[in-house]
């Protein structure tokens, strides 16, 4: 049996492959700063997208996106604000996405564009 960390890593791998096929330009993977962490930072054409990836092997403990709750959203938003500041990206369009991954299902990827905002 895989550990949860391994499951997560595998899910992120699938998500990145999926984003490549959609034509996204990946900027950062597992970006970390002192406030929090963003799984994937990518450009969808001109829109800078911060993506949270959640992986689950089964539906038994609820849907994956449900675990991106208000607290987690806040963390992602704050971390991304800091990212924007660090690279002086004051004039870009920004979006927050969530990608669910269910590796054992037929269609493993479920992409929520603009899943939350400020």
């Amino acid at each position, binding site marked *: 049996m895989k550990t949860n960390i391994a499951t997560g890593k595998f899910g992120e791998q699938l998500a990145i492959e999926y984003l490549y096929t959609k034509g996204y330009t990946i900027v950062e993977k597992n970006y970390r700063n002192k406030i929090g962490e963003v799984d994937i930072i990518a450009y969808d054409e001109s*829109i800078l997208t911060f993506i949270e990836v959640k992986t689950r092997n089964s539906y038994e403990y609820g849907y994956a996106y449900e675990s991106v709750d208000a607290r987690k959203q806040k963390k992602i938003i704050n971390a991304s*604000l800091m990212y924007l500041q660090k690279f002086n990206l004051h004039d*870009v*369009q*920004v979006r927050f996405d969530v990608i669910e991954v269910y590796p054992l299902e037929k269609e493993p990827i479920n992409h929520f564009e*603009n899943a939350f*905002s*400020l």
Partner: protein
Amino acid sequence: MYSKVFTCVLLGLDGSLIEVECDLSRGLPMFTIVGLPDTAIKESKERVRTAIKNSGYEFPLSRITINLAPANLKKDGSQIDLAIAIGILVACGNVSNAKTSDTLFIGELSLDGNVNKINGALPMVISMRETGIKRCIIPSGNKEECSIIEDIDIIPVENLLELTQYLNGEIDIKPYKSIDEDLIDSNEEVEFDFADIKGQEGLKRAMEISAAGSHNIIIIGPPGSGKTMAARRIPGILPQLNFEESIEVTKLYSISGLLENNRLIKERPFRAPHHSSSGVSIIGGGRIPRPGEVSLAHHGVLFFDELPEFQKNVLEILRQPLEDGFVQISRASASLIFPSDFMFVASMNPCPCGFFGDPLHQCTCTQGQIDKYLGKISNPLLDRIDLHIEVLPVKYDELNSISTAKSSKEIKTKVIKARTIQENRFRGEKILTNSQMSNKDIKKHCKLDSTSEKIMKNAFDKYRFSGRTFNKILKVARTIADLDESENINENHLLEAIGYRSLDKKYWG
């Protein structure tokens, strides 16, 4: 990425033009509304977002700032939804701004993009007449009430998509004009007819006078003598509202959300609040002041059944509106004036058991009880009521007689004739009926001959009238003379008028 559209908020009966500025800029997606919005407007964010999405447009992914100017005025009401949605759609280029510069947008959005009916559409549109606005986009649920306005194009819309297509010139919506037969006197049968009341000729006569001059009236009598029955029949003998009055009344009902089937009100309102009503419900009020019963009875009848059963403070607050014809309501948020020019009709028993002065029944009240009961009606209030009339129980012969009494229709004809005389007399002045005459008007129109003068002097000495009572008597005498189609007030008219003011001495003297 900037746009400006217009909407309107109401302050009492006056609408003020609001600029909705919308700016889209890049950055973290946010949606903020500034410019003192209240809760209903803050919540409009969610309605606007969903309505735009469900109308087939994409909600722009950018930092959205809405400013409601003038920024120092507190704004409330969900009618701003539509302007915000259009502002956003114009700013992101989905809608052309060719028509938005002289257009007013009012309407509440629902999640599926439908434009819902709002309260107060008529007063909003009316107050836009002098602001340079050429057309008003309104919810189609409000089109009937607004269609009477001539100088502004009324464009009713069902939903947001229809509106965007209209603004983009893809479809054309014709300005709505009412195809109503408009203000033609409807000769419908009245629901309650004076012909149903047997006997009680004195009461009917007093009602006729009261209706003819829009005089306040109080009816005192034992239970079952027909007080309430007669009062309910007053609307049936009153003339219809004229156009200006009709608009005033409709405005008040519109902001109160009481407009049935959203048409112009043509019948005079008849309000009969229960005696448990609170002061605020009668006079108007609330955090954002709303009109009360006195204003809803504007140009109509306010009927208080069982007058002494009302709370004392409720009765006393009637003094000012009875005298002035308007109420000024001051709250922290605003100080507003609502019109309240109504005809006051009250009925009461002479004592708690009801039979004091009744020739057929024994009154069981003590003198103290009677004094306390009558004492609830203060002299200042009584002073403001023009006609006092006492009714006695109906006799068997009268009740059983087959002869039909005068019908409401006949009385109405007389009343209308008297009102026409008054209208001609006051042409060019702001008043319509004798009851509204000022001291100057009284001097001009209520001249007494020498015999009448003598009668008046005697009565004044005997009954010790107040100055106000004196004027009220002259006004009533003028109305009686008008009903008589007589140019001058003669002694009979005056004597009858004095007769209606001698009752308070019997009970309250």
